[in-house]
């Protein structure tokens, strides 16, 4: 997943904001990162998870149905 990293202060956010939540900077660069599933659920056969990325932001994503928790 790609998160937005503020080019002024380095704070990562997802989704990208209009101004950096920390320093109000206006310029971001996308950075690829991975993360850890913190919670997961299943609704109508779709597995939805809250993932904490290594750069900080939480991302809500869909888990591969074949993966194990």
């Amino acid at each position, binding site marked *: 997943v790609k998160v937005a990293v503020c080019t002024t202060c380095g704070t990562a*956010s997802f*989704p990208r*904001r209009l101004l950096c*939540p920390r320093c109000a900077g206006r310029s971001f660069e996308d950075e690829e990162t991975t993360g850890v599933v*913190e*919670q*997961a*659920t*299943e*609704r*109508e056969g*779709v597995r*939805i*998870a*809250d993932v904490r990325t290594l750069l*900080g*932001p*939480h991302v*809500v*994503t*869909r888990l591969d149905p074949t993966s194990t928790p």
Partner: protein
Amino acid sequence: VSSARIVACAESPYTRHPPADVTTESLLADAFVRALGAAGLDRDDVDGLGVASFTLGPDHAIDLAWKLGVKPRWLMDDPNGGASGIQLLQHAVRAVETGDASTIVLLAGDRLDRESFRALVDNYNRTTAEYLAPLPTGGPNALFALLTQRHMAAHGLERADYGKLVVAQRRHAATNPGAVYREPLTLDEYLAAPVVAAPLHRYDCVPVVSGADALVVTAGNEGVAVRALRALHNVDDQAGDGLATGLAAVRDALWDDAALGPDDVDLLSIYDDYPAMVLVQLADLGLATDPKRFLAEEVERVRLNLSGGQLSAGQAGAAGGMHGLVEAVARLLRRVDDARTALVTGYGMVLYRYGACANAVVLERT
């Protein structure tokens, strides 16, 4: 002391399957007529109109004013869902105090069937449409399943603990002829209900209904006064765990303004989109700081969500943000059980992971 008073309230009955000729604006009109009737006022007395609705669009408050034949000098739309009722009240009280209007009707309501509900939750905001609907999350249930897992872990709670709140609210719903769920619910039935998104099962999720609510705010000495009203939105940029709302930061100011403490209010109407959020808001405001103990020892005793709450009465879209106000105001005006004060909260607007809006009001019959 404020010169503004809530002098009447009304609810257009909630229904699960509205007839084809019922529209969002017909529901709002019904609540408008009922509220004026309850207040003993005529349409021509109304010089302020505020509206909260997800499905009124492309119309706005001014379209509604035109179709109702109201000529307002104070006019407001509030799109903030579960926080909209208290938002509208916050502004209406100031408008009456300053003389911008003398008689304000506040309306909230939606007609929601399967199709319009799906359209609403998939396009709730740009972030939802872009990042959540394609997964598909299919609405907020999956997000609050994740939040409830965090809440369970943080407080050592199990499904049966939340069940005590749901069962207690259902018991109250027996006295509300307008509630969707009125029959008593046992803890076993709660636990055996079909799963929606673990750990949430059917009775942890509000039944989607159509309906509308209304309040009338005027200047005077009689009625229900706002002792305190505080709000704080987007408190953590969606970067936390969702287990605290903005209410935690405004708690002291709210109780200071009210010159009351959390244990002094007679009635509690706590926004109940999900059981975990009731417990989060209660803790934020200094009530039920130990949710496990609260559920074991107090939930049966406290006067909490006496309409059955949205979990039993149903959630009529944006009317959910006014439902608790109407429930509390109705009881204060009718002096049910001699209740004199009430705490009402609003919560909602899921931006990405959980709700961002939070507000609370302390009401007093004068």
